[in-house]
């Protein structure tokens, strides 16, 4: 579905992404692992049109080229991003944030059902519909951001470190929710530091280092790969299995 080939990206003279090729299949869940500064966020930003790519990048969603697509057109193509730092509308209420999630044309219709789903995933949001998003706690804001992205009825949902700052119970619930979302037929492209839990729901994974893809494999293979163990799991098993 999503095909990225030879993606390069520069910030000034700094080459943040170097010839990156990544693909996400229909209804597939793909996770991207990498140290801080490896370029994971930049990759997601490039897909959603928020940063300009350079070189001979090719990028398409089901054949529809994403190159030079202005960022506001991307949601309509069926790609939603939960960005780093959440990017919610702080001065608007939870309800309004969710309503805006359904702003893209493709999201009109079936709105009520999706709202239902979101409140089901995050009951806290249902309680706080009229609260100003800015005044919610860090974790609550993350829920708003994911809810908003889901409201756009995406075919591909990209999440940039969604578990950041969430209580363990919420992380568990969130990944359970992602699992359910994925079962509704939405493809997921996930950037996570919480490696084990993300590999647990993923089909495939990529390893990134200093702007390059340095490895690619199925999730189960990655889970047991000693190199991955060494680099990303700190050589230990985490508290989740």
């Amino acid at each position, binding site marked *: 579905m999503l095909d990225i080939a030879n993606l390069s990206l520069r910030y000034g003279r700094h080459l943040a992404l170097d010839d990156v090729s990544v693909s996400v299949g229909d209804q597939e869940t793909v996770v991207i692992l990498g140290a801080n500064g490896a370029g994971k966020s930049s990759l997601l930003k490039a897909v959603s049109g928020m940063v300009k790519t350079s070189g001979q990048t090719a990028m398409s969603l089901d054949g529809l080229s994403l190159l030079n697509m202005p960022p506001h057109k991307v949601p309509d193509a069926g790609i939603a991003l939960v960005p780093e730092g959440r990017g919610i509308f*702080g001065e608007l209420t939870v309800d309004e944030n969710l309503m805006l999630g359904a702003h*893209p044309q493709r999201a009109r219709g079936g709105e009520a059902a999706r709202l239902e789903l979101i409140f089901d995933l995050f009951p806290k949001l249902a309680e706080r519909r009229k609260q100003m998003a800015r005044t919610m706690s860090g974790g609550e804001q993350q829920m708003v951001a994911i809810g908003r992205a889901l409201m756009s009825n995406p075919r591909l949902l990209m999440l940039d470190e969604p578990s950041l700052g969430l209580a363990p119970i919420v992380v568990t619930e969130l990944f359970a929710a992602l699992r359910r979302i994925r079962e509704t037929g939405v493809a997921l492209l996930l950037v996570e530091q919480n490696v084990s839990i993300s590999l647990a729901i993923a089909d495939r994974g990529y390893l990134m280092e200093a702007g390059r893809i340095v490895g690619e494999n199925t999730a189960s293979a990655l889970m047991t790969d000693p190199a991955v163990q060494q680099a990303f799991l700190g050589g230990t098993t985490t508290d989740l299995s």
Partner: protein
Amino acid sequence: MIVTAIISGLVLGGTYALVAMGLTLQYGISRIMNLAYGETIIIAAFCAYLLVSQLGINPVLGLIIILPGAFAFGYLVYGLMMQPLVKRSAKSGTLEVDSILATFGLLFVLQGVMLVVFGSNYTSYSYLNFGVQIFGATIGANRLLAFVLAVVIGAALYLALTRTRWGTAIRAVAVAPQSAPLVGIDVNRTARFAFALGATLAASGGVMISMYQTFTASMGVIFTMKALVVVIMGGLGNLMGALVAGLLLGLVETLVATYVDPGLTLAATYAIFLAVLLWRPSGLFGKAAS
């Protein structure tokens, strides 16, 4: 007496509110601190005057010509002047300073053109200048019309902005322009639209004002500053705030003139404004400071 004072205060405040609402759109949503805002008002006033005096078209009909013109003008100004600045400041974050400087230049250009075209004289014409009785108070029909229009336009805009997805999208651009594209909002188009809409409101204010007030080509600044005071007092980007603050200032002005001393009306206006800010540092309806 008190009824008369209150009614004429509200009517006066209506114009303030109308004028301020346009500015709050331009500043609150397009993030352009438009120092040339008042000039738009005066240009519209001159246009209304021309239509009346040259073509005999009454100003209310004139709105049909002037408002689309103002919209186009705003659209053009944003596209030509502001858009490059907005683009440029995406990285540097200097939009506020840049827009102050650029619109300061625009102010001079517009004022200069008006001085050349219309001269520096006082201009006025007479339209609907007769009294209407409301609750026993006599109000100029022209002022009343301005008030009604202000309320209608204000209410319509308010409802549109708060009750529709379209309006919420506009507010989203106001609060987090960098996030708006994530939900498919074209920030540039929205900002441009809001700016043009602001210019349209300014023009409608100008037409209203021209019906009962004498104006000159150099008077724009007075309106810009008055509008800014109202906008800030109400809370930036908040239409309801602009409406309430406008009416409040109108009331204060007439009540002070009636019961205290007309010499203190402006002092009272500013005193109230300052007091409101001391009490609520982000204006009446602004977000509370954390």
